């Protein structure tokens, strides 16, 4: 039992870091932020799922995917399709030529629900598909790439190309996907209105809980032998192969896990923000996610979450005043991090926390002071 908790939390230091993050997400932010800002925060937390997945995949496994947006998007689309079908009941769509199908299908002269929309009539099935669809795509890509030993920069470029293809496909197939506008006007989930204040709070907490859950899973993977093998593969892939491991299987697995986590983030995005569009699938969001992870620290699960939140709050604040300069600033930030702080914020924290040994110094002074005080008191009473 102790072994399991150590694996999930990553020892005492990991547990403290995780507890502070949980305290911020569950107590401090909900108390200090108004609902609008909390909603924004909830949106950023959904990106943090992707950043955490990149810590596994890129930071530890050395596999740079520039297409995590597609998994985020697929998870989001799965959830959006369910919500859209519920919003398109025959009564509220009775002015359409074909009532009971989503409005954009009606505009595109579709008279029947396409077959691949049918599973999204059921919530349990949708929840399964939120996990399965991104994972399955990752498995197909991973199997095709890793079994052929495609890696490094080639893998990065191919994932980017696939993300682009997927976003073009979604935009082009307007009648089936809602096109460039995405899937909008989402209202209820099994009759529960997701737009009310109370629903927003509940979704925020579910979201934060799922993120912590994903981080525990990621921590378990990283502290197991699998995690050590990831580092070993990043370092010397050949050596791992010639130590009797089928390297491709390990890569496929971690790519699938990363895709699944990203998909959960996407689904929570749809629920909290109320729509999903191709702008979260393509190249730009995929690269932004990599920047979030890099800024926070690609080796640190907790760092990646802080990185995501900080960069996004920075964006919101900065682009409210200088909208056109934001992209330059983010590009500059990325370059600066890669050049000067390859381990990101977490790396800086580790370096200075260790250098000044904050915890150690404090306890030393406390001990010294109490000793002195005891001595003085002793002398007084002699």
């Amino acid at each position, binding site marked *: 039992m102790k072994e399991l908790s150590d694996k999930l939390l990553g020892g005492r230091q990991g547990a403290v870091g995780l507890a502070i993050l949980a305290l911020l997400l569950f107590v401090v932010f909900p108390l200090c932020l108004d609902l609008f800002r909390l909603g924004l925060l909830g949106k950023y937390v959904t990106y943090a799922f992707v950043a955490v997945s990149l810590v596994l995949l890129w930071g530890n496994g050395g596999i740079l995917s520039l297409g995590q947006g597609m998994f985020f998007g697929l998870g989001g689309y799965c959830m959006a399709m369910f919500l859209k079908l519920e919003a398109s009941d025959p009564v509220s769509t009775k002015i359409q030529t074909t009532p009971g199908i989503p409005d954009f299908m009606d505009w595109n002269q579709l008279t029947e629900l396409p077959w691949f929309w049918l599973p999204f009539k059921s919530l349990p099935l949708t929840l399964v598909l939120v996990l399965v669809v991104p994972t399955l795509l990752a498995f197909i890509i991973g199997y095709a790439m890793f079994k052929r030993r495609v890696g490094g920069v080639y893998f990065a470029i191919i994932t980017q190309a696939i993300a682009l293809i997927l976003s073009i496909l979604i935009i082009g197939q307007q009648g089936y996907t809602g096109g460039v506008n995405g899937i909008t006007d989402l209202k209820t989930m099994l009759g529960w209105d997701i737009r009310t204040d109370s629903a927003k709070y509940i979704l925020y907490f579910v979201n934060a809980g799922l993120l912590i859950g994903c981080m525990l899973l990621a921590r378990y993977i990283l502290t197991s032998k699998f995690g050590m093998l990831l580092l070993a593969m990043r370092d010397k892939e050949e050596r791992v192969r010639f130590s009797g491991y089928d390297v491709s299987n*390990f890569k496929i697995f971690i790519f699938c896990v990363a895709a699944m986590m990203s998909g959960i983030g996407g689904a929570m995005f749809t629920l909290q923000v109320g729509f999903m569009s191709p702008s979260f699938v393509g190249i730009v969001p995929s690269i932004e996610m990599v920047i979030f992870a890099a800024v926070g620290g690609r080796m640190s699960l907790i760092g990646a979450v802080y990185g995501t939140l900080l960069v996004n709050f920075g964006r919101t604040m900065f682009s409210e005043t200088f909208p056109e300069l934001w992209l330059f600033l983010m590009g500059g930030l990325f370059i600066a991090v890669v050049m000067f702080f390859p381990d990101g914020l977490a790396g800086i924290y580790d370096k200075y926390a260790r250098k000044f040994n904050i915890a150690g110094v404090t306890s030393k002074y406390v001990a010294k002071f109490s000793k002195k005080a005891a001595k003085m008191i002793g002398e007084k009473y002699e």
Partner: protein
Amino acid sequence: MSNTDFVLAIEDLTVSFDGFKAVDALSMYIDKNELRVVIGPNGAGKTTVLDLICGKTKSSSGSIKFNNIELTQLAEHEIVRAGIGRKFQTPSIYENLTVYQNLEVSYPVGRSVWGSLTFKRTQALSEQVNKIAAEVLLTEHLQMEAALLSHGQKQWLEIGMLLMQDPELLMLDEPVAGMSAKERDQTADLLNRICQNRSVLVIEHDMEFVKKIAHKVTVLHQGKILAEGSMEKVQSDEKVIEVYLGH
């Protein structure tokens, strides 16, 4: 091809790269518990032979049998699991892991995805790590990051990683390259100890070192065997002196 008593039986093995035959109709047999050294000038095909055995390079024709299992069709990890360990020419270790972790990763339990996720660090593992670390003289450095080891210690660590798998055939590509004279002696002792219950195949240039360890020597030249036999026999062979030892 019929079955044999040899640990490793290579017959008629050929590989060509764009018409150039790096290994040309090579046949070679290695006995149980034998320590064989392969020598030869640069470009003779020594490393290519190791690559062919461990599956890094696919052969054009011929057969490699390990305990009568045909290896030429197996994937690299399957060849390792059959019982063959291979050390690369440049030390190939995981620099970001500690010495202990380097050895632990090489422990042949939990080799599948699921197995590695549910792998538990057992008493047997730590005993094995400590035993091997003592064998390769790294006991004091177990908690050190492997990147900080000296070049010679990195070579030993890689040999240790192979010993963790307890292979029946151990293949070492230039194990003493870049080592000091003292380290060479220690490595020779190490090899003489570890070949007690396994076969070892070594590629080496250092003739003094070869003399200390070899049971039998094979001289390769242009992908073919030039001479084979005891060190004295090979050293006095005129062809060998002409192409290799003479200069």
